């Protein structure tokens, strides 16, 4: 938005509130503090950057849950069945596929050219759609008719951290806002006592890229993602300390509010009202966050559906927390699960480690789709599954079977709001090297997510350093075939 426009909006709001507060004093303020979301009556980003804003056009999706498989899952053991690759297992890689291409770990390539590695798992067709699914995903296979599986993703960068930055911010460079931040900037928050953009992590390994992938970049920091830790105290220092009762906390917040109100009455500066509202939100969050994280409130059948165990840190628990967040008005929930970087060493391989990580996510991913459908939420909730790039059809020559980084094709799936499920999109050559039909770039994914939320990716811009920036930079086409 034009910064001057911001000021003008603010001026309008100052007039409005100034009169209200000075004229009506405690009455208006009382209404403000009555537990109602402050956003309801004001649509002004200057005073309240999180006030809900109308989309550019009617939205198909009201909320998004993005299951990010961190480390880059191998397409050949998950969604892309390449029988020809199995036939050619162990054969030298045709030169035509390698010449002029750059890969991660190039030095190892020149030491010894790797051979093709056949799929390490079996596939079967599932559902009415007959979509091929690997045996590592028996649960996702059961909901496959809800999923639109895209095989033809292409990434820009073959290193994890930059690729994750690109997926989330549209650029491999630091300092751009993340997708969730853009969405929150574009639409504001519908959650009265929880953040609009929440991140949950699971998995044993380090999440490469770290918190920058949900940062707000040059957007105001109010739009950055909030990470909920895997405990009953998801936001550090949020819960009242031991020995400190809720009523004592109320008294403390009240005391601060009284002082702020006195000042507000004296000077009528709307900034103070914003501050009071922020404290109230914090107070409400102190109650709502622990309630949110308390999975014991869920029925045993729901816990079983996800494989969730109250009190345990797991991807399954995070999926269930994600559903609870979405129900409570959070618009964008991103789950990161690490452990997909299957190179072929003891820590990361397509032997036992693939099964471990698949087991950790499969049931819960499927459960989330099923649960959202049962609760009538799938119609306006977009569910996304995918990693930051794919893996090579060649094996990596290490101790155990594994594959190198590959950016020329990799899969994602989409389900729910506005998505035509039960289809596959994009084609890849027989050996799984390159996209042969319907290529999809990362900016296209971003444009499509924004589109489903009612946002035109070319119009969602923010002026910074004299230029209007956007999530999709100068690219992005909405993936029309994906849409119902």
């Amino acid at each position, binding site marked *: 938005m034009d910064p001057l426009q911001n000021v003008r909006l603010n001026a309008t709001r100052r007039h409005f509130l100034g009169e209200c507060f000075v004229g009506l004093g405690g009455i208006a303020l009382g209404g403000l503090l009555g537990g109602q979301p402050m956003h309801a009556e004001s649509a002004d980003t200057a005073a309240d950057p999180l006030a809900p804003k109308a989309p550019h056009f009617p939205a198909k999706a009201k909320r998004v849950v993005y299951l990010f498989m961190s480390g880059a899952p191998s397409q050949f053991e998950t969604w892309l069945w390449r029988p020809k690759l199995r036939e050619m297992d162990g054969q030298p890689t045709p030169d035509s596929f390698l010449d002029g291409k750059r890969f991660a*770990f190039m030095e190892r390539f020149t030491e010894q050219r790797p051979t093709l590695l056949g799929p390490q798992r079996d596939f079967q067709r599932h559902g009415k759609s007959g979509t091929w699914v690997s045996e590592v995903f028996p649960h996702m296979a059961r909901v496959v008719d809800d999923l639109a599986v895209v095989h033809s993703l292409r990434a820009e960068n073959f290193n994890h951290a930059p690729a994750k930055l690109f997926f989330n911010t549209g650029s491999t460079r630091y300092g751009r806002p993340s997708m969730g931040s853009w969405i929150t900037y574009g639409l504001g928050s519908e959650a009265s006592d929880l953040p609009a953009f929440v991140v949950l992590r699971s998995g044993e390994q380090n999440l490469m890229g770290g918190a920058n992938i949900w940062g707000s970049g040059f957007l105001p920091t109010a739009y950055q993602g909030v990470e909920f830790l895997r405990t009953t105290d998801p936001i550090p220092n949020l819960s009242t300390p031991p020995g400190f009762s809720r009523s004592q906390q109320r008294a403390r917040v009240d005391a601060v509010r009284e002082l702020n109100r006195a000042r507000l009455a004296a000077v009528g500066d709307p900034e103070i009202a914003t501050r009071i509202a922020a404290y109230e939100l914090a107070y409400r969050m102190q109650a709502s966050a622990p309630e949110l994280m308390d999975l014991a409130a869920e029925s045993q059948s729901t816990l079983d559906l996800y494989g969730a165990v109250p009190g345990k840190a797991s991807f399954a628990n995070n999926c269930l927390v994600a559903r609870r967040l979405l129900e409570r008005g959070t618009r964008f929930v991103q789950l990161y699960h690490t452990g997909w970087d299957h190179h072929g060493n003891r820590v990361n391989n397509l032997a036992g480690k693939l099964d471990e990580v698949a087991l950790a996510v499969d049931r819960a991913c499927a459960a989330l789709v099923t649960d959202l459908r049962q609760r009538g939420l799938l119609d306006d909730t977009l569910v996304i599954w995918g990693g930051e790039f794919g893996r090579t059809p060649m094996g990596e020559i290490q101790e155990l079977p594994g594959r190198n980084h590959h950016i020329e094709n990799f899969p994602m799936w989409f389900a729910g709001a506005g998505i035509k499920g039960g289809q596959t999109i994009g084609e890849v050559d027989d050996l799984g090297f390159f996209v042969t039909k319907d290529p999809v770039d990362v900016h296209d994914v971003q444009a499509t997510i924004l589109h489903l939320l009612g946002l035109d990716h070319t119009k969602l811009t923010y002026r910074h350093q004299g230029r209007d920036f956007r999530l999709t930079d100068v690219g992005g086409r909405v993936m029309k075939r994906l849409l119902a």
Partner: protein
Amino acid sequence: MAGLGAAHAAPGPPFSAESIRFFETRIRPTLHSQCSQCHNDRLRTSGLSVASRDSLLEGGTRGAAISLDRPGKSLLLAALRHTGSLKMPAGGKLSAPVIGAFERWIELGAPWPEDAGSGGRADDAVHWAFQPVARPTPPLSGAEWARNAIDRFVLARLRDSGLGPSPPASRETLARRLHLDLTGLLPSAEEVRAFVADRRPGAYERMVDRLLASPHYGERWGRHWLDLARYADSNGYNADAERKVWMYRDWVIDALNRDQPFDRFVIEQLAGDLLPGATPQQIVATGFHRNTLLNLEGGVDFEQYRVEAVTDRVDVTGIVFLGLSLGCARCHDHKFDPITQREFYRFFAFFNSIDELSGEYSDAEGRARAFEPVLEFGTPEQYVRKNALNAQIEAMEAEQRAYQKELLGRQDEWEAGLSPEEVSRLPPGLQAILRTPSAERLERRKGILRNAFLAQDPGVQERRKAIAAVRKLLPAIPSTLVMRELAEARPTHILVQGDFLRKSERVAPGTPAVLPPLEASEPTRLHLARWLVDNRNPLTPRVTVNRIWQRYFGAGIVATSNDFGTQGEPPSHPALLDWLAAAFVEAGWSLKDLHRLIVTSATYRQASSHREDLAARDPANRLLGRQARLRVESEIVRDLALSASGLLAPKIGGPSVFPAQPPGGDDSEAVAREQGIRPIPARPLHPLLADEPAPRADALRQPGRADGLHPPQPLDHPAAGADAAQRQRLSRIRPRTRRAPAVGDERCGDLRAVVESLLDLPGTGTHRRRTEYPAKPCRGAA
């Protein structure tokens, strides 16, 4: 390019600066973003180019795009309005206000800057920021209110708008404001009392001098500088591993505290290593441009990230000193400012020959010297010890190699002798290799097996252990990242679309033509540094005084403090900006003098109270009819909580202490160390520091989240005095002094003292009006 444009530019009517500005802000960006991808001089889709006024008047195959005789009938408008068969842009109809702007623009006669050639340039010669710094005389009126020249400029502008200034803030407020602005710490109750009671002339000035002399001044303003320097104690990217560059941070704090003239401050940071007879401290200063990211993820191409780092140096130099977005010209000529892509790479060449991690190193070599160049600060004894131990390690390794060589002769024997049970206990990968006949094994797998064989041998294990033990004895020699030139300069090429693999024409170091020339036959980084602070360079002093101004008033005289280019905001007080810039340079670039000048002005000392007339006429407070109400940054909130509760560790400098990251254990010192010490990881961040942007020079810091996540931190962070166990641990660091009361704390002291220490108000409550309470609530109140 400009010459080409001028060659076929018909003499147009002279346009007012205002109409040119209208074009630059409302029309050119749309032409650029919506039209020029197809309709440029090169492609001329349908014969049309929007690159110049002439080309629009000339039009394409459908005729003239704009008609000055009948503006409303212009083909361009019909296409934009979608009224005829031609509907543009192809991406969809533009909004009504944008179309309206085009209507107005054509009615105005399609103003276009005269010198703007086909490249679509702003009028280089006209743009205010590229003009020499003027030395305006302050307006004469306003003597009754003005305390110095600043006030005369400000008052004149206010009066022009029919407004007046605000009364001075209370003395309590001024004490608090000055302490927060100059040191980032609260004044003690005694300090406030003493100042309030000091009715002698010059009491305020004495407080200013005392604070400018405080070592915490360097910390406070050092933090601002380190934000610009994108200082971080970690590498960024994947694991965001720690790096050691804290000596540079300490250097900044020290340079500010001793008021090193700003021109020297700049020269040493950019090129201290190239100064004749450079001292170690001058080399430490060059850590400025080593605050670039370092990607050590497995499988990276080092050259790719070296080029990113050099690009970052150009970006940051442009933003921090010149207020120009040079980075926009990385892939193509700058769309708005007079910077060509070629000029970008000529600037790039200044930073391109650092002896750092690059594609010239293999993966293993590169990782071994990942942080080079560094400057070490070991004692002679440490080096003697290091050399001795290294020699010992080398000897041990030679012996180990000989042992292993002999041992490997027995590998086949070992393999043959493995029982099926022994094999089954091996990791599955090794089992698979063993099952393959040795002749068919791939080289890399043979290596894996060889390593496994060696690793199981007790003799090898013993040797490895012994070597590791000696390695542990190597002295930890403090070091810091610095700049160092390669013996032979690395050639610099224009990179096509910024892609490090697509080298085009070779270029020599040089500066943009729009700025005063750099006069040197073979310019180096040192020449560049001197050029930045040369008296003829109008940008560096303007940009610098503007940034400092911004810290005191919430917005700069130029609101877009990082962009003084044609897309930036024009200055609210152009004469004041130039007067300050000139005064700054004349006073020998003394930052402390500049601070003193600003904070002793009547403008700075005004009350910040809301005023209806100002809110109505000047809602953004650009005219400064009152002081701004600023929120302090999150790390200052933290320091205030620590200092108010007496828990702040007063130490300045030294290695950074990483604050405990939840949910891990808490480190008491980490919690209590203060602003100058807190490490800044390239990753965000301790949750208390919720408003911290990514460490980038252009990152926007907006203190005080309004979304509810900021308040709970000060409310409930251990340092705020709520958690008894935590507090006891912290209190061991500094177990005395003014501590905040907490419920259930039997050690609660005198409540009055607490109120005084937190709010800078006498705690008796009898002679203070209640409404005065947070006299400056946002600077102090959490």
